[in-house]
């Protein structure tokens, strides 16, 4: 009965075995997009949702009005954080393969977003991350040992063993708790910013969501509340082209960029080269200035590519060309920043190699430290009694009795 079906089924440009094809991606030249005053009315800058703000050109040179002034030392630090994140991801991925942790998600290829944006926000700003923002934690000062300990569900796990790996948070770094449920953090960020506005404070909040997750209700709720109450919130869509096995066309990305999603509500959208740390930094700074000086939300679409598998449970070779990442026209954010720093005389291949080596050792040392707090199989381990804590502020009588039942049964067994 479907021979005559006229239902449109989105199809990615390439499947396994095909040549990668990114001709669908609208690109602007580096430096081509003008920089409007951050307080420009949304209706006058609608083109920013379709253009692509890029700073670094193919030679690694910063171009145009968006090019930010950043001290070389800061850029070197950004590079270090990106490399550290990549080393961490690599290590944790391998640890999962070896059965040391139950699950992992890499952020490979998307590091410039977390690091570039992290450089803009203040410690008092509140971040509502997604599960590919590990670099943002690192940027805001979370010890990678703590990230590892969360993945290990060990005695130093900030989640006390309750969440799957990568569901971090860091209260003192104002990093919110990551949820397994997609998109739920979006209205939280808007609500947080509403409270900031109500209190007359100038703290902004920011949230991250994947391209695929924009189809969820919470994306709509967040945009609507942001449009209505104009709180100081930076809403990011990380368009890494894939949502597990479905490409961004299944989230409605085939006709218009995600940055345009708020336009019908009057929310300005900016589309940025997510693999260009300078562009990410500049666009975020613009949006934060807008939020602090004139109020209101900005939606930023970061165009990037999910360099790795969706998670350790995934096998992308089943649904996309193996070499798609290498054909991605916006390249690799680490390589691009490195090229820029070398080009501007602040860095060299040798230094890069040395730093990478050093960070590898840092990660190894961190892992050693992390496992000293316990692993899935080895002591020390969390006290099982803690399982009943934090369901409510005080442990209710019922849960105390259940805790005792559990202890009795475990006691009887051992």
């Amino acid at each position, binding site marked *: 009965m479907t021979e005559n079906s006229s239902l449109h089924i989105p199809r990615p440009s390439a499947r396994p075995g095909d040549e990668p094809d990114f001709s669908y991606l609208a690109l602007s030249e580096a430096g081509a997009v003008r920089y409007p005053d951050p307080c420009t009315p949304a209706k006058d800058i609608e083109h920013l949702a379709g253009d692509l703000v890029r700073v670094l050109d193919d030679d690694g040179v910063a171009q145009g009005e968006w090019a930010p002034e950043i001290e070389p030392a800061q850029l070197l630090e950004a590079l270090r954080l990106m490399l550290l994140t990549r080393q961490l991801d690599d290590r944790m991925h391998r640890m999962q393969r070896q059965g040391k942790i139950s699950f992992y998600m890499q952020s490979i290829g998307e590091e410039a977003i977390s690091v570039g944006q992290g450089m803009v926000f203040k410690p008092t700003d*509140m971040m*509502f991350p997604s599960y590919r923002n590990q670099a943002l934690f690192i940027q805001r000062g979370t010890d990678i040992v703590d990230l590892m300990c969360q993945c290990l569900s060990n005695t130093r*796990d*900030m*989640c*006390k063993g*309750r*969440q799957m790996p990568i*569901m971090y*948070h860091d*209260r003192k770094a104002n990093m*919110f*708790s990551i*949820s*397994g*449920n997609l998109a*739920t953090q*979006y*209205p*939280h*960020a*808007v*609500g*947080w*910013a*509403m*409270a*900031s506005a*109500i*209190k007359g404070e100038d703290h902004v*909040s920011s949230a991250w969501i994947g391209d695929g997750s924009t189809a969820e*209700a*919470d994306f*709509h*709720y*967040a945009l*609507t*509340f942001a449009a*209505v109450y104009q709180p100081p919130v930076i809403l990011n869509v990380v368009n890494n082209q894939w949502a597990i096995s479905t490409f961004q066309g299944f989230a409605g990305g085939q006709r218009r960029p995600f940055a345009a999603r708020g336009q019908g509500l009057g929310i300005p959208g900016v589309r940025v080269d997510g693999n260009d740390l300078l562009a990410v930094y500049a666009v975020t700074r613009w949006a934060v200035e807008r939020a602090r000086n004139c109020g209101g939300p900005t939606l930023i679409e970061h165009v990037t590519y999910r360099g790795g598998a969706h998670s350790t449970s995934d096998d992308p070779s089943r649904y996309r060309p193996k070499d798609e990442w290498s054909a991605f026209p916006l390249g690799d954010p680490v390589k691009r920043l490195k090229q820029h720093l070398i080009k501007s005389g602040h860095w060299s291949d040798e230094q890069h190699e040395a730093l990478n080596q050093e960070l590898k050792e840092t990660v190894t040392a961190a892992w050693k430290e992390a496992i000293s707090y316990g692993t899935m199989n080895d002591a020390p381990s969390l006290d099982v009694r803690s399982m009943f*804590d*934090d*369901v*409510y*502020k005080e442990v*209710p*009588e*019922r849960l105390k009795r259940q805790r005792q039942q559990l202890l009795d049964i475990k006691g009887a067994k051992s």
Partner: protein
Amino acid sequence: MSQMTMIQAINSALDVMLDKDPTVILLGEDIGYFGGVFRCTDGLQKKYGEHRVIDAPIAEGGIIGSAIGIGVNGLRPVAEIQFADYIYPGLDQIISELARLRYRSGGDYFSPVTVRTPCGGGIRGGQTHSQSPEALFTHLSGINTVMPSNPYDAKGLLISAIESDDPVVFFEPKRIYNGPFDGDPDKPALAWSSHPGGDVPEGYYSIPLGEAAVVEEGDDLSIITYGTMVHVAQAAVKKAGISADIIDVRSLVPLDVETLKQSVEKTGRCLVAHEASKFGGYGAELTATVQEECFWHLQAPIERVTGWETPYPHAFEWDYFPGQDRILAGIRNVLEAV
């Protein structure tokens, strides 16, 4: 002391808390300028400003979701969902986020949101303005669930809910907003001024969550119920000319098991009543709990008197509603069982 309806008592609780605690804010559809479709927030925006009593878009998930964020940022949001029948678009934020935030973050984050919502039938609301979905909430770990049966309790419990750092879903049985209701729609409406629960202090007081109220004491059986059904049970007991403990659960979670236990151990017979349908309803938990706790004292099966297992129909509202006759039949079953 003054006389208040349940609407006025709820309004007073919100007023007291807005006044006492500058971090309290209200959010909901039509609650601000208009004062709420049931007028529970009447006058509060005028008194506290549009930045503390905030009209919201028609987006229940957005209301709960943004309230969570507001709570994380140090304010204390009280969200109104216009009808309990419309809370479902907000369920994901309640179940996946509000109820679990403290747990999943190892105690580092929490959001002290209170969700108020009118529930129950008896106002000719048909299948989408009459629902009693409390059982969907009482199964969740990490939130508390409350349903008062009179103005005094409504105010005291709502203040506790707002003050609590744990999230609370607060159901308001709308049929008794303006007066107690004994289940007979043909009788002239009663005013709260005719009921002791209508005496409500003007100022601050609170009733702790987790304590049931023994509304009447007696020996023949224990009736465990809450909300509107408390009044129906009282009328039925009177009509039956028997002597019963009538327990108003009030706080569905945490449940005051001790009070139920003491009562059923005394009477040996138990009837559970609620408006929601039977299968998998909150009464199933009450029944299971009582049989676990009081098995050796029970002289008859515990009987459940509830709404039928259909949606709440407009035309047959009073055939659906578990009124006095149904409770009387239930009492007979429990007392005559041998």
